[in-house]
């Protein structure tokens, strides 16, 4: 759901940018604040998509070594990796907390002179996105430990295709 929202949003940026370009080149009136909107949007989009990217296995990794491990070790290493991921996003969450509160309380904004873009939506989206990412990594770790059957089935499928290769 977040994924759909974020992806649709990224798509929508196309139109904002096009409008700005046309406004600037054809009508000599740039739309104020488009760069500010776009750059804050990118941060929000990425953090909204983080959870999905993690759960769908789209995060880039090297498996040249891990794929040769015996299943039990492989599962242990994967779980460890997922827990590190959870810790990483949890630290981002803690590290963003104060700034997010400050942005809200002090009415922090970016982009003096053009459009004043409030900072709190971006900062809170990072908080929220990191929370979802932490949960996603914990979920992945849980599945790896307690639902080995599911994982084994996938591994078997993969082994089959590797053998075919």
């Amino acid at each position, binding site marked *: 759901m977040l*994924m*759909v929202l*974020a*992806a*649709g949003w*990224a*798509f929508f*940026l*196309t*139109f*904002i*940018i*096009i409008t*700005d*370009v046309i406004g600037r080149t054809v009508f000599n009136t740039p739309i104020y604040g488009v*760069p500010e909107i*776009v*750059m*804050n*949007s*990118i*941060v929000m*989009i*990425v*953090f909204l*998509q983080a959870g*999905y*990217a993690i759960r*769908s296995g*789209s*995060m*880039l*990794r*090297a498996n*040249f*070594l*891990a*794929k040769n491990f015996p299943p039990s070790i492989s599962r242990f*290493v*994967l779980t*460890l*990796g997922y827990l*590190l*991921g959870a*810790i*990483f996003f949890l*630290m*981002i969450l*803690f*590290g*963003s907390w*104060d*700034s997010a509160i400050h942005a809200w309380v002090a009415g922090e904004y*970016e982009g003096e002179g053009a459009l004043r873009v409030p900072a709190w939506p*971006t*900062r809170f989206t*990072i908080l929220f996105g*990191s929370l979802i990412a932490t949960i996603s990594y914990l979920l992945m770790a849980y599945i790896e430990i307690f639902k080995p059957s599911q994982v084994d089935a996938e591994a078997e499928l993969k082994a089959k295709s590797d053998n*075919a*290769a």
Partner: protein
Amino acid sequence: MFDVNIATVLILSLLVMVALGVHIAIALGMTSALGIFLITGGNFDVVIAMLGSTAYESLRAYEFAVIPLFMLMGEFIGKSGAVTDVYQAIHRGLKRIPGRLAVATLLGNAIFSFVTGVSIASAAAFSRIAYPEMKKFGYNRGFALGTVAGSSCLGMLIPPSVLMIVWGLLTERSIGQIFLAGVFPGLLLVSLFVIYVLATAILRPNLVGATSPPIETKILPEDSSPDASTTQVWGSALGITFVVVAVLGGIWFGIFTPTEGAGAGAFIGLVMAIAKGMRTREIIDAILSVGRTSAPILLLLVSAALYSRTLAMTGVSTAIQDTFLGTDMLPWMIIAAMVGIWFLLGMVIDSISIMLLTVTIFEPIAVSLGYDPIAFAIIGILAIEAGLLTPPFGLLVYTVKAAIQDDDDSISVMEIFRSSTPYWIIMLTGMIAIASYPKIATYLPDLIF
């Protein structure tokens, strides 16, 4: 100025995590966290403050929008069927050329490369479009798939390209300049690839099916796709040409920045996709698919920013640079060592991860050795991209293999690797050519900027 022990711990922990298959973004991020923790004498508050600050600041630049927008453009055009049309148009145009299907694959892929920034997209598309045709005409299957894999590298080497964008973002060089610098080297590679295919077709005609008659002799390739009328083909060809001219020309003549070019490209791509009859459902799928592929790359960029800041905070980057520059090695030997490291990494991890791990360290060294930063960008991208064709991890080869899996799973990955080797060697040649004559890369950007 820095603690050798901390440096060692950082490098080791990163290597171990990457090798164990921890997500690269996490490996980079956790190594950074550890580094900051050690350098501040165990101040956890600073660690999380740095993480939070980097999460907020590192993507907050207009240029980062380039990544999803160019991917969107490629996705729309790729899925619209325009590529198939153009492939067939070239194919029809090359009646008397030996190995014409392979040549058409190369040229079609080259043109497609102007609109897509992701090699894997090219590889997946052409495995389905070109491979069945070549198989039908009795081409050696390894040769056919090697051609698809090899020519798909052009996606990253001809602008726009995600690798060029990421390089520009990491080194804070102009993305527009790097794009322009990629044009001549890309064309050079296409020419060398075509020469290789023609030479093979003449010297070893059995590889291109000249000895055995087509399996389905009655059906000429022209007739094999009744769904593509001449008007459609021309429409697609014109559409793709228009995108190339509008986007690259727009950046070139300064009508817009790379970000705006990407926005314009995505918009034109959408219009083309609708014109080619793409349904709402398919358009939504395309948008979602870009979300799936772009988010991990952007998250990696957050970690990479964190990692490069940590290297700066610990003084490790300066130390590595001093070590490199302090040796008796000649400049070309240092560059060769870098290329060697890229090749090695290319065997095990993907191109973007390699860039994130190395470029912020390598580029300043190359620049202080007197290399032109824009030419060096192209050299680096070539070296890293060549890794996509080298075993055991060569991503393009696996993509090709996966794309044809359903129809034909009797061919081994190693066979495809073997047939990709000539393309890989040609890329190496191109790289040496640019290292010797940087003008090949810098001529166009120097003209404009």
